[in-house]
């Protein structure tokens, strides 16, 4: 590992809320800055997407948390202002950020819609010492784009990301290896990147409460308790991490899609329709990336929030909507008792490969070539005339949208206008 590398992690503060605030100030000409009042971006409670997606600092000060139901947030903060998300706006804002970062840094790796790493190695002569450079970038984003970011500086990606998380907003932090014992190790383990509630509980059971204890734990013991993830966490806690950025978006490890419905699903046909609509979008994305997957998974959430999931291997990798859909239905029928009302359905395709191979088969009637030609034609029509230009006839009388999917729809198409939504359903 080259210890001379300087990696900065750029993270937009309360991204969705900031972007909405900037839009309202700069484009709509409003005078009230949402960032200065208790406000959140939240889904529509009526369609059961009523959770906090992003919060302002004043809302945070009153205890509002990202991910909690809106009614709970309103209890903590009765005057809470709720604004709907606008994903196309966020994609635009995100693209602006990346364009700016590419102006200042030679290598930019986007991690998510509101986060990116930039490699500042060797830019001292341009911008001065790294800390100074980071401040310049942070301020430039604030002044030119109107929203604030946190920047974390270190020698590798993980440390930079952890540093960016220290205190917010509009700040620059460093976490170079010599600073690890004083800045990182005293923190509780849940502050560690990739430690969720489940890992935290397991670590606590092992007597590990701080990141320092994690760093000094026996990696073999961690592996026993948390499998491979344990070793990964140990490496992170000791400050080891990747320091090479890739401009190219890494190939997806899998494709997944889920939707929370406005009304509980209680019959098999509706469920199958929704699965088809989820598979349609996921398979389109796979074909666009020229990938095939060989493991199909289905997950369900019941109306009392129980979670069910199962996956099954296809005999060979596929990118065919119908093949994936058939497998998903087969799994769904084994997974669902036919009675429990369902509020959320999801489909995933993993074990993806780019190698376009096809094991020839006997007896199976559906001709893969025919399916593939159909998929290609459908994709072409949708690309040319829009995604709603063509849909399967079974959706004619159905309340399920012909294509269901998440944020990736906007990313995929680069749509910059607000997306038309079926009033009964919204993006999950």
């Amino acid at each position, binding site marked *: 590992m080259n210890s001379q590398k300087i990696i900065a992690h750029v993270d937009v503060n309360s991204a969705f809320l900031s972007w909405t605030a900037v839009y309202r100030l700069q484009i709509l000409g409003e005078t009230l800055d949402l960032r200065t009042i208790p406000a959140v971006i939240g889904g529509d409670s009526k369609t059961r997407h009523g959770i906090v997606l992003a919060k302002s600092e004043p809302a945070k000060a009153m205890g509002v948390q990202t991910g909690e139901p809106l009614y709970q947030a309103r209890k903590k903060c009765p005057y809470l202002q709720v604004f709907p998300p606008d994903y196309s706006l966020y994609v635009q804002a995100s693209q602006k950020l990346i364009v700016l970062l590419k102006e200042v840094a030679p290598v930019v790796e986007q991690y998510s819609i509101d986060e990116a790493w930039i490699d500042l190695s060797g830019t001292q002569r341009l911008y001065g010492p790294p800390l100074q450079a980071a401040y310049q970038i942070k301020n430039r984003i604030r002044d030119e784009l109107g929203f604030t970011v946190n920047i974390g500086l270190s020698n590798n990606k993980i440390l930079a990301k952890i540093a960016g998380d220290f205190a917010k907003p509009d700040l620059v932090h460093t976490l170079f290896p010599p600073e690890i014992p004083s800045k990182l190790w005293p923190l509780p383990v849940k502050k560690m990147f990739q430690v969720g509630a489940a890992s935290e509980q397991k670590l606590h059971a092992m007597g590990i409460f701080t990141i320092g204890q994690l760093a000094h734990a026996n990696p073999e013991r961690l592996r026993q308790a948390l499998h491979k993830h344990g070793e990964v966490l140990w490496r992170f806690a000791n400050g080891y991490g990747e320091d090479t950025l890739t401009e190219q978006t890494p190939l997806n490890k899998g494709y997944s899609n889920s939707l929370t419905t406005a009304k509980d699903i209680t019959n098999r046909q509706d469920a199958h329709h929704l699965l088809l609509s989820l598979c349609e979008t996921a398979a389109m994305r796979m074909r666009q990336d020229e990938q095939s997957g*060989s493991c199909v998974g289905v997950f369900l959430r019941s109306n009392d929030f129980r979670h069910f999931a199962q996956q*099954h*291997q296809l*005999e*060979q*990798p596929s990118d065919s909507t119908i093949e994936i859909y058939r*497998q998903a239905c*087969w799994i769904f029928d084994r997974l669902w008792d036919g009675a429990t009302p369902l509020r959320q359905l999801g489909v995933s395709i993993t*074990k993806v*490969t780019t*190698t*376009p*191979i*096809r*094991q*020839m*088969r*006997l*007896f*199976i009637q559906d001709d893969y*070539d025919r399916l*593939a030609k159909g998929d290609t034609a459908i994709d072409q029509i949708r690309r040319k005339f829009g995604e709603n230009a063509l849909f399967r006839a079974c959706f004619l009388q159905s309340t399920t949208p012909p294509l269901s999917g998440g944020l990736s729809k906007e990313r995929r198409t680069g749509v910059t206008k607000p997306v038309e939504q079926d009033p009964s359903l919204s993006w999950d």
Partner: protein
Amino acid sequence: MKVNIQKEDLLYAVQAVERAVSNKNTLPVLGGILITAKDGLLSFRATDLEMAMECVINGDIVEEGEVAVPGRKFAGITRLLPSANISLASMGREQLLVEYERSQMSVPCFLAEEFPALPQPEGEIHGTIPVKPFRRLVRQVSIAAANDEVRPVFTGILLEISGDKITMVATDTHRLAKGVCAWHGQGEASLIIPCRTLQEIARLAVNEEEEITLTANRNQAYFRLGNLTFTSRVIVGQYPDYKQVLPADNLFCCHSLIHNHRLCNALERASLISRDVTRGKGNIVRLTFEGDKLFLAAEVPDEGTIKEELAAEIQGETLVANYNARYLLEALKVIDDETVCFRLTGSTTPGIIEGASDENKDYLYLVLPVRVNR
């Protein structure tokens, strides 16, 4: 119930039926082995409702009765018992006392009356199959059966009983294996028997001079082999017409005779390179049949490349076809002749592998290639 039995006899009986003990806990009693002492005979029985196995042996019966012991645990205990006389005695309805030398163990049991009764063997199909060809055939055909439950008929082996022959066929739609063995009996039928049942029978049929008695109706098949009885569900469903996919003789455009073990070794080496190309599903090798050579190649970025050249007797046109190496290897290993014949109909259409020896004259293995770059 109270019986005395030698450890070796007990172990034989328990190990015979242990594989039919259910792994699922939908019905707890199916995790048990039912031991019945009656009329001077000791019967051990287990079932997972798909397959039931029974083993009957002699024992010194002090008091008749029955007990349903927890299968896996009791099998474990039996394996570790000293080589001595063992006494098994039920204490009440839910406890078994195992006494050996000067020691004893007690094990909680299931209620014996909850154990499902075995259906009586009956059916219009009745006859015998010699053990030796049966074992060979099951080994050779079962490789092509599917593990995947998506299409249940393919997890079974098709038994076509007609005249003095049983034809066995298995396919997972990527390959198909077919063989024939002798049948002495009555009735004509096509039965799809779970592959696992036939493999269990083959495993326990150690005496090659014996015969297996088969009695079957549309729902159940009963196999008897000496003191062992197997009851199996017949898989419901329509088996596809396999004869339709067997290519007519005039369709073959390339015939080759290849040294089996050399091809096996080359495929195994190639598998080291090509394995996991599509995460466990790949293992693709390219075979080129040309002149008097068979070229074998695999290349996977980051894993390496391999090119091999094997001597072969080839007639017909030059052909290049990609295969899943595992499908070829499994066939070559069960054919175990020195020379195998590989006939092809094209680079994306079926090929057939056969042994050259007389013993394999009724066996064929059809394999479909893999198309690379669609």
